[in-house]
């Protein structure tokens, strides 16, 4: 993404692993919101998300979101494990993703997007 030197001192760990964890959690949160919205909006998606019938679509939505989070975290960690990245920008993107994910789980907001 936007790797850049941001040396903050001798003996200091690079911020890449922390940035990867933060952005990974944000991607997982957004994925949760997107899957929740998709399951609520399209009946086909709703059926596809039923991994375990007693829990309904929530079983698939949450499992896939956790999968996306771990995958994103793992890939970003590999890419940034020994690098310093522009954390201010990553923080802004991460919080935007977190808020978007949060809103996509909020039923009145989802209803508004669905035109109800």
């Amino acid at each position, binding site marked *: 993404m936007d790797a850049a030197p941001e040396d903050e001192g001798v003996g200091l760990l690079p911020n890449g692993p922390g940035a990867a964890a*933060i952005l990974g959690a944000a991607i997982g949160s957004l994925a949760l919101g997107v899957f929740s919205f998709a399951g609520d909006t399209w009946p086909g998606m709703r059926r596809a998300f039923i991994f375990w019938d007693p829990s309904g679509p929530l079983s698939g939505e949450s499992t896939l979101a956790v999968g996306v989070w771990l995958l994103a975290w793992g890939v970003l960690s590999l890419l940034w494990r020994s690098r310093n990245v522009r954390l201010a920008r990553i923080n802004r993107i*991460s919080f935007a993703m977190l808020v978007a994910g*949060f809103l996509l789980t909020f039923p009145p907001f989802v209803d508004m997007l669905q035109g109800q």
Partner: protein
Amino acid sequence: MVLSVRDLVTLLHGIGFGALFLLAFSGAIGVIYATAAGSEIWSSSSIHNKMFRFYLLSMAGFAWLAVLSGTYIVYPWYRAVPPPGTTDLSHYPQKLLLSNPMTAGWHELGMEWKEHVSWFTPIVMTMVAYVFITYGPQLARHRQMRNAVLGFTAAAFISTFVGGFFGAMLNTRAPTGGGPEIVLMGHK
């Protein structure tokens, strides 16, 4: 005095994992901030630091237990479908709430939001625990990372509060009771 197995598991889910986790938040935010202030007592080898790593890992563990028990044990009881012709919906909380326009909102807003928003918390708290364990006192010098961790911790608090509030309200309106009963105290 009796308690059903479902009551007990729901209590464990809500109070045992959820409320305990909620209570731990103020400590987490305070200590992350204190650690990042660079005090000597929070050096990476100090007992305080080790204890706080355990504290954050426990919080993440409680968050996972809360969502997993909620999604795979309590929620199936909540959304159970009654056999055709059932008139007593007391053991079918979702259908009980939806059967009355005055209570349907508790499901349509409360449960629909709670079931998803609660999943933010374990993801976020696992990240927070990882970052603290990796960086510890160095967070004092990684200020942007410390700010992100504090912000995400606050977001996890909000999502847990939403889940806990609606969980408590739903359980007063339509408890997930039923199943075998445990006698806690006999009649004197």
